[in-house]
């Protein structure tokens, strides 16, 4: 049995759930559990020393832990949506327990939660990634001092972007010399992360159970998530050194699914590592790749035999 633990309000969770259900031919039943529903109205007991002794129950779903052969789990922050303190405590408790407990199950898990908590701090994350991979990263400055921020901007001739320092979603903005110098004093209350702008396309590499799926994004905006008209998504070739680093990172983090973001400098061809996300929203990339990412994950979770990669989809290892 494949256990899917997540939120019914999370498109990424539902995307792979749908693929897992469609792959019923692999002979595995899929049990889907909404974590908030579990917290408010379900029950479970899980003792990793003796998984067969416990069962998870919610609604008409019953999951004996001993029959679980694979887990698809996404546990985003859900407690803030609860209507009161009691609800927040219930959801926080279930989330904390499951995030730790699934590490004790000896079955394939996509992804064991909390394996890369450092991306709650973009700079700490960048330091960790650079140390682990040896890959280049964009020159960065996190500061609450307007003078130091201005000095960093000047060092890079004004060709700088800025964004938030945490994993909270912020839009990347390009430094605007007409508007931004007057706003610099605001950073004294909340520090801001400045980075040299790497002029060139973005590349998102997904490692999925050891398979590599890469997409290049050419976008007229500084933040391609805005996807303005003229944005072009296309399968990408990944240099061998980058492919190896991505696979090594996925293995080292114990994250079978890893979304790794790069910028490729147009003038030099150099790859700059931005982020490695162990809980990526990958469904858009997967759809454009014809389901190749989810197919890798379904194989991993169901133990189905590997099928030959379709030409043009196995994008790792080219130099």
């Amino acid at each position: 049995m494949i256990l899917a633990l997540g939120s019914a309000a999370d498109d990424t969770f539902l995307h792979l759930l749908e693929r897992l259900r469609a792959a019923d031919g692999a002979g595995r039943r899929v049990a889907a559990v909404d974590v908030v529903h579990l917290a408010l109205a379900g029950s479970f007991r899980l003792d990793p020393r003796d998984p067969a002794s416990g069962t998870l129950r919610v609604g008409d779903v019953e999951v004996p832990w001993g029959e679980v052969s694979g887990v698809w789990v996404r546990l985003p922050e859900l407690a803030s949506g609860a209507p009161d303190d009691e609800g927040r405590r219930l959801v926080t408790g279930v989330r904390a327990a499951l995030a730790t407990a699934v590490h004790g199950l000896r079955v394939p898990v996509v992804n064991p939660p909390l394996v890369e908590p450092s991306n709650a701090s973009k700079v700490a994350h960048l330091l960790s990634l650079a140390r682990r991979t040896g890959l280049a990263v964009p020159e960065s400055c996190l500061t609450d001092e307007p003078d130091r921020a201005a000095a960093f901007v000047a060092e890079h001739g004004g060709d700088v972007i800025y964004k938030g320092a945490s994993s909270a979603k912020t839009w990347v903005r390009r430094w605007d010399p007409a508007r931004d110098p007057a706003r610099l004093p605001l950073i004294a209350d909340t520090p801001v992360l400045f980075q040299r702008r790497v002029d060139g396309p973005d590349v998102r590499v997904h490692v999925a159970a050891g398979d590599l799926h890469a997409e290049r994004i050419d976008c007229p905006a500084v933040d391609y998530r805005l996807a303005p008209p003229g944005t072009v998504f296309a399968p990408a070739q990944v240099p061998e050194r980058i492919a190896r680093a991505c696979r090594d990172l996925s293995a080292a983090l114990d994250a079978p699914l890893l979304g790794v973001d790069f910028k490729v400098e147009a003038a030099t061809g150099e790859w700059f590592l931005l982020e490695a996300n162990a809980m990526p929203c990958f469904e858009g990339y997967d759809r454009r790749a014809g389901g190749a990412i989810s197919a890798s994950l379904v194989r991993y979770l169901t133990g189905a035999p590997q099928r030959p990669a379709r030409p043009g989809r196995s994008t790792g290892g080219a130099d």
Partner: protein
Amino acid sequence: MLLLVALDGDPWAPVLSRVAQEAGTEVRLVDDLRELRFDVRVDRRGNPRCAVRTVRGDVPEGIVFRGGTVLAQDGGFGGSEHLAAWWALLAAFDGPVVNRPTRHGPLLTVDRLRTRRAAGVGVSAWTLREPWPAVPASRAVPAVTVVRRAADHRPVAPSGPDGCSFVADETLEVIESTAATVLWVLIAGERFLVPAGKGTLDLPGEAADRLRRILEPDLPALARLVVEFDREGDCRVLDADPLPGTDLLGEAVQDAASAVLACVTRGAAP
């Protein structure tokens, strides 16, 4: 100057301040990132460079981070940004830091040890609205049972007809030990202290070395562990509290504070 980052009411802050000042070290106590001016630079090879000073212009030579800061406790956007900045600053600071974050997180917890699958870490179990069996048929009767809320790790007293079997309307974490000996151990700098009477004793070197191996690379300079020891002398960590109080230390609190500060003043903090 030593920067001591702690919220008002932190039990270690006055002890650490006093011991540091008695040793001739100036201390600045802050509880808000806005009391500092800093920048953290990263070059293209990922090498950090960090400059930090207080708003009064004092430059710290070492930092003791006790976890709590005013805005970082706010669950909103500002809190996330301040916590992220603290994490970056402490990771990049080139002087000694007590509670320097690793890639596994800013503070050591037993969950962090579990998620990195560290060897020598005890197993927990969890239950939500399901009865916890009084005596599991498959295992020895536990000598120690700790029950706490999964949401915040606050201990709760098991309730049930015989005081052992229990069921609750929230997720509980159950830690059981069948070992002959379960002790709490305070890591204070390079010392591993266990309570003894009004004071403490140092854990024997071999046991301390075992604990060091379990905790590496997350060995903290100040934390409280709950550790079980079997008859062969092997040990497992059952729990780790990165922000321990001073309550069980008695008169040994001064020695413990000195040991913590020795890390900062010697530059030997992990």
